[in-house]
């Protein structure tokens, strides 16, 4: 799962939700799917949580410098 992109993880999670909704999935399979789903869900929210350390950069004269962006929430 560590190698999964967020997109792949979300897609798989959607798939699992659909499978669980489907009555034909056996209980054993459902339990396994559910466990996988819970892990995926945690993995995704962890990925979304990793916000702070992403600072934008700008390439000036061949050097990468930090680029601060102020986001005003005045909408």
């Amino acid at each position, binding site marked *: 799962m560590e190698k999964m*992109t*967020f*997109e792949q993880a*979300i897609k798989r*999670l*959607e798939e*699992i*939700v659909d499978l*669980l*909704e489907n*009555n034909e*999935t056996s*209980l054993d399979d*459902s339990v396994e799917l*559910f466990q996988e*789903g*819970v892990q995926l*869900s945690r993995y*995704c*929210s962890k*990925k*979304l949580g*990793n*916000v702070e350390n*992403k600072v*934008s*950069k*700008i*390439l*000036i004269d061949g050097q*990468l410098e930090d*680029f601060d*962006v*102020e*986001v005003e929430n005045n909408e």
Partner: protein
Amino acid sequence: MPLDKKYITVSALNNYLKRKIDVDMQLQHVFIKGEISNFKRNMSSGHLYFTLKDGKSHISAIMYKGFAEQLNFDVKNGDSVLIEATVSVYAVTGYNQLIVKNIEPDGLGSLFLKFENLKKSLLQEGLFDEKYKKNIPSYPSKIAVLSAYPSAALMDVMRTLKKRFPVCRVIIFPIPVQGKDAYFKIISTLKFVDELHFNTIILARGGGSLENLWNFNEEALARTIFELKTPIICGIGHETDFTICDYVCDLRALTPTYAAIEATPNIEDMYKHLSMLDGLLKSNMKYKIETLNTRINRLTHFYLFKNPEKLYGDHLQYVSYLQDKISNFMEKRLNNNMVIYTKLNLQLQSQNKVFVSHYQQKIQTYENLLKINFHNKLKANRNNLSMLISKLNALSPLQTLERGYALVKKENQYVSSIDDLNNEDNVSIYLKDGYVKATIYKE
């Protein structure tokens, strides 16, 4: 009519004027600008006729079919145009006229034409085809932003990216966005960035006039964008501005801000989506378990599980019925056989006694008979013997010899006739008290 005055004809004058003008090198190649009016196309010959005018003057113009066919825009009345022509005189009317070789729209018009032509040729070549458009990743982790620094467009992009999807790493590559040959720098930057494995490139520039945006209509830049391996979103100018880059890029955004929106998911939406999925995951599982529980409960309360003896009660009864039946039957059968046996046994015993006594009697009888017969036989034999002894005594030769008779034996045979005797035979003569040897003497 004074004789010293020489009169010439109109046509001679017109021809003279025509010659004068035709040999003037200045007038052979003139560049004139003006506005088109009275435009018409001769359908049979294919030549174009119009009047070129400015605020004060006008001059008629003709464009022959051969040149007219090379025109790459539709000439119409009111167009401001730049004209390349030869000035001549139409001898019939004596009017000056322009023999037009090329017409181009004036100013902006000419840029617009260039734009249209490039757009048309790239379209035909297939550079705008949907099949070449790469998908923009929904959840990018690395985005390259190419824009002027500092610029309002860049700030729009950066603010939008940060607000929507702060988990994404963004690197800005400043580029010049206007001025002559700015597109060379844009091309080299794009090629450089394309090798850095970004998920998405955003090419952004604020609004501007057609001339200001012109770098984004350069064919070389369009071809570079077409060749990119990385998906690219263009956000150039305002909603109404279209550039060649907009057509060739993978996704055209109306403005720089929209480019940033197209490049990223909204993290708030993602949180919502994720928590919705998480909720669905749990509720679906819960529902599944509840459904199964209900089923289990229903099965557990099934009457046979509660009263399992009902499963075999009937059979038990039947078995005991059969057991009873079988033991009754056996008893009856045994009794019957017992009666038969007793009867037969009695019969056998009585028959046996009769049989034995019968044969005992028989044996006794035979035994007595045997004894009697044996005695009789013995007695008879004794009598017979005594009789035979007396008979034997009477017949014995010894008695005869006693009375003086003799026996003659020749070679151990009794001789009964003289014929059996020859002269000089040796014989034995037996008498009552022994024998003597004798020789026969025959006469």
